[in-house]
C-alpha cells in the first residue's frame, strides 16, 4: 500500500494511453518520485538520445508518501533528460497537482514519443484521453489552466502546463502547476514542448491507503509536532525562503552582478523582511503565506505589486495577488542582476510563472548578458535597444517578458548562459555547471556548496545536498567531501518519498512514516543506501550520456578570482582538494566512474 501500484504509460506518437502494473521490485529499491523515476528513465531510454527528440522520455512521478497526511505530502518530480544540460533532470514541485495524480491511481506518468499536433493529457481516474490543444498552443500558463477547467466544466482539475517558453524550446523552460508552483529547473518544460504536449490535467477520487493506519498517524503526528517546535520552520512560515537573502548578505555568499561580488548593497530592499514591511502608504509586498498540499509549514508567498509601479501601472491584469519572491528568485532577478526594486523583482517572478520558465537560469543568464553589455561585447544593436546595464529594473522586466514570449533578444537569453556566452566568445562568463546556472550561494564563501554544485547530477544545484553547517563552520575545502556525499545520499532518499526537503526531520522520522505506510521494512540505514543507489544510477545515466570527470568543475571566476568581500574575503574555491576525496568516499575511480565493487554493493551491476 501507499504505492498505487500503477504506472500510466502514454505514447504520444501512437496516441495510446495505457496503465501497467508498477514494478514493485523497483519500488523497493528506489522508493518513489526521484529514485523510481530515474530507474524507469534508465530502463526506458538511451541516455545519449537528443533531449528534445521523440526518444526522450518524460516522467511525472509521485512518492509513497504523496497524498498522505504526512506533512508536506504534495510533492512530485519531473524526471527526463534535460535540454539545458544534456544530463538527467529531476525537478521537484509542490502545489496540489502531484497528490491529485496519485489520487487518480498512478504512482508514475511515463510519456514517450512525440505528438504530431499540440495536445494535452486529461486524466480523470481510469479515464485517460489526449485532447486537442490547438486553441491553447501559445497561451500563458495562467490562461491554459483556466481554459482547461472551463472546457471540461470541472473546477477540481489540477493542471501542470507549459507556457510559450516551453513550446518554443527555451532551454530552461519550466513545468508550472497550480499557477505558481514549478518543476523549475533544467528545462523539463522544453521537453514537454518538444513533444507537443501542452499540459497534463488530472482529477483523482480514488484516495491513498497506508499499510498500518494507526502507526502511520502516530508517526506523522510526531513528525508534525517536531515541525511545530522547530525554529527553522517558524522562520520559513514567517519570512519564507527569502530569509536566506539576509543570511547570505551578512555572510558574504550572495552572488551579485553575475558573481563578480558576494554582497549586494540593495539586499535589505528585496529580502524576506522587506516583503513584510508596510510602506508609509500602507502597501505591503507580502499579502499572505501559502501552503502546498499537505504542508504544515506554508513557506509559499502570495505577493502584491504596487498598482502605480511602472511595470503594471497600465496593465490592470497584473493588479491581482500572485506567487511572491522565494529566495532563489530574489537572488537571481535581484542581486545577480543588481536590481533592488522589489516590485520589479516580484513582477519578474510573476512573468516567469506566467510564461513557464526557471527564474534562476533566466536571472543568471541575464546577469551574464549584462556583463557582456558592460564589457561592450554586445550593444544596443543586439538587445533591441535596451540598455542592459546591471541594476536596470526596466531592462530586467522587459527581458523577462521577451524571453517568456520568445521575442527579440529574449531568443538569445532563452539559450541559457552557457550557449549564449559561447556564442559571444566569452564562455568564462557563464556561471554554470554542466550548463545549468548556479543558485544563490557563492562557492568561494561556501566551499561544500561548490563541491555539491560541481558534482551535481543535474548541473549546478543547491537542492541535492546540504553542507551549510560545515560551510558556515569552516571556509576551506577541508572536511567538506564527507558531508557533501552523505547529504547527497540523504537528499536523494528524501526526494524519493513524496514529501518536501524543507521539513527538518531526522532520517529516522522519515523512516518511521515510510515504514508504517509502505510494504517492506524501512529504517534509516536502508534509506541512506537507497539514496546512494539513486545517486549512482543518476551518475551512470550521465556517464552514458557522455559526461566525464572534466565536467565536475566550476567556472574560473570561483576557482581563481579571490572572493572580494565578506567572511571569505581573498579565498577561492578549493575544488581540486575536495574532488579526489569525494570520488574516494563515493567508491569511484579517479576519473569519476563508480568501481565495479561500488556498483555491486548497490545492486547496480
Amino acid at each position, binding site marked *: 500500500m501507499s504505492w498505487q501500484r500503477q504506472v500510466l504509460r502514454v505514447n504520444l506518437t501512437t496516441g495510446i494511453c495505457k496503465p501497467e502494473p508498477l514494478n514493485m521490485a523497483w519500488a523497493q529499491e528506489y522508493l518513489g518520485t526521484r529514485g523510481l523515476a530515474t530507474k524507469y528513465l534508465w530502463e526506458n531510454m538511451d541516455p545519449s538520445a537528443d533531449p528534445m527528440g521523440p526518444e526522450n522520455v518524460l516522467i511525472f512521478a509521485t512518492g509513497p508518501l504523496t*497524498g*498522505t*497526511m504526512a506533512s508536506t505530502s504534495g510533492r512530485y518530480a519531473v524526471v527526463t533528460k534535460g535540454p539545458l544540460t544534456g544530463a538527467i533532470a529531476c525537478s521537484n514541485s509542490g502545489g*496540489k497537482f502531484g*497528490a491529485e495524480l496519485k*489520487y487518480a491511481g498512478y504512482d508514475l506518468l511515463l510519456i514517450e514519443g512525440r505528438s504530431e499536433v499540440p495536445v494535452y493529457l486529461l486524466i480523470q481516474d481510469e479515464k485517460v484521453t489526449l485532447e486537442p490543444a490547438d486553441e491553447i498552443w501559445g497561451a500563458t500558463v495562467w490562461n491554459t489552466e483556466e481554459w482547461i477547467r472551463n472546457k471540461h466544466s470541472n473546477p*477540481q482539475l489540477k493542471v501542470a502546463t507549459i507556457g510559450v517558453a516551453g513550446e518554443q524550446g527555451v532551454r530552461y523552460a519550466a513545468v508550472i502547476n*497550480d*499557477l*505558481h508552483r514549478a518543476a523549475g529547473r533544467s528545462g523539463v518544460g522544453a521537453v514537454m514542448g518538444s513533444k507537443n504536449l501542452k499540459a497534463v490535467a488530472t*482529477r*483523482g*477520487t*480514488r*484516495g*491513498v*491507503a*497506508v499499510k498500518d*493506519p494507526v502507526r502511520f*498517524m502516530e508517526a506523522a503526528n510526531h513528525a*508534525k509536532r517536531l515541525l*511545530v517546535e522547530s525554529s527553522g520552520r517558524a522562520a520559513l512560515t514567517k519570512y519564507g525562503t527569502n530569509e536566506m537573502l539576509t543570511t547570505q548578505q551578512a555572510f558574504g555568499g550572495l552572488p551579485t552582478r553575475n558573481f563578480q561580488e558576494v554582497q549586494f548593497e540593495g539586499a535589505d530592499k528585496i529580502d524576506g523582511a522587506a516583503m513584510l514591511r508596510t510602506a508609509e502608504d500602507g502597501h505591503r509586498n507580502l*499579502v*499572505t*503565506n*501559502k*501552503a*502546498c*498540499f*499537505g*504542508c*504544515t509549514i*506554508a513557506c*509559499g508567498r*502570495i505577493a502584491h505589486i504596487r498598482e502605480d509601479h511602472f511595470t503594471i501601472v497600465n496593465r490592470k491584469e497584473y493588479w*491581482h*495577488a*500572485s*506567487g511572491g519572491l522565494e529566495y532563489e528568485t530574489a537572488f537571481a532577478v535581484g542581486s545577480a542582476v543588481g536590481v533592488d526594486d522589489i516590485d520589479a523583482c516580484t513582477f519578474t517572478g510573476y512573468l516567469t510563472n506566467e510564461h513557464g520558465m526557471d527564474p534562476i537560469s533566466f536571472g543568471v543568464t541575464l546577469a551574464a548578458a549584462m556583463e557582456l553589455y558592460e564589457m561592450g561585447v554586445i550593444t544596443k544593436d543586439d538587445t533591441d535597444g535596451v540598455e542592459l546595464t546591471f541594476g536596470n529594473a526596466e531592462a530586467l522586466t522587459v527581458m523577462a517578458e521577451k524571453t517568456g514570449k520568445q521575442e527579440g533578444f529574449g531568443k538569445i537569453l532563452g539559450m541559457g548562459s552557457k550557449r549564449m556566452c559561447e556564442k559571444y566568445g566569452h564562455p568564462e562568463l557563464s556561471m554554470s555547471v554542466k550548463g545549468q546556472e548556479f543558485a544563490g550561494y557563492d562557492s568561494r564563501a561556501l566551499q561544500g556548496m561548490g563541491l555539491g554544485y560541481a558534482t551535481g547530477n543535474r548541473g549546478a544545484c543547491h537542492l541535492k545536498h546540504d553542507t551549510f553547517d560545515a560551510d558556515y563552520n569552516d571556509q576551506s575545502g577541508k572536511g567538506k567531501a564527507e558531508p557533501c556525499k552523505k547529504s547527497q545520499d540523504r537528499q536523494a532518499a528524501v526526494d524519493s518519498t513524496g514529501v518536501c526537503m524543507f521539513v527538518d526531520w531526522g532520517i529516522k522520522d522519515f523512516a518511521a512514516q515510510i515504514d508504517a505506510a509502505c510494504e517492506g521494512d524501512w529504517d534509516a540505514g536502508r534509506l541512506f543506501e537507497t539514496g546512494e543507489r539513486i545517486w549512482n544510477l543518476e551518475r551512470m545515466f550521465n556517464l552514458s550520456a557522455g559526461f566525464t570527470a572534466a565536467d565536475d568543475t566550476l567556472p574560473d571566476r570561483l576557482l581563481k578570482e579571490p572572493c572580494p568581500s565578506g567572511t571569505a574575503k581573498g579565498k577561492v574555491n578549493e575544488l581540486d582538494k575536495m574532488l579526489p576525496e569525494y570520488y574516494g568516499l563515493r567508491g569511484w575511480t579517479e576519473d569519476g566512474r563508480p568501481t565495479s565493487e561500488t556498483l555491486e554493493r548497490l545492486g547496480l551491476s
Partner: protein
Amino acid sequence: MHKALHIKPELCTGCLQCEMACSFEHEGVFNPARSRIRIFEFEHGRYSVPYTCTQCAEAWCMKACPTDAIIIDHQLGAKVVQAEACVGCKACTLACPFGTVEFNPESGKVDKCDLCGGDPQCVTACPTSAITYIDADSTGIDRMRHWAEKTFVEATQ
C-alpha cells in the same frame, strides 16, 4: 450546549490537511474527493476558504429526505446520514442551499459532515487553528469584538 465548527478563513493556508483527515475518519483512506469539508481558493491563492455544513437548526436536507435517512444527533446537534436508509435519490443535495451534502457515486449514497461524533478530525488536523470547535452561541464573538473595536476604539482615537 451544542458546539459548532468555527472557521476563520484568514488563518487558512490551503494545506488540505482537514480534507485528508475528514476522508480518513469516514473512509479509512486519504481522499479529499470524499471530504465533507472543502477548501476553496481565490485570486491565485490569496484567499483560502474552508467550507462545510453548518448543521442548520431547521435542516432542509432532513426535511427533503423521503426515507428519513437524515436524523438529528440531539447531543451534538449534528444532522447525520443513516447510510442504511439512504437510497441515493439526491433530494437533499438539491434542498441544501449551501451545497454541503454531496452524492458519493461509489457508495451510491450521500455524504455530509456529522461532526465526527463530537471530535471533528478537521479541527485536530488544522495546523493554524483556522477551524475550531467551540460553543455554538459564540461563533460570532470574535467578529463582534473586532467590529466593536473598529467602530468605537479606533474611531475615537
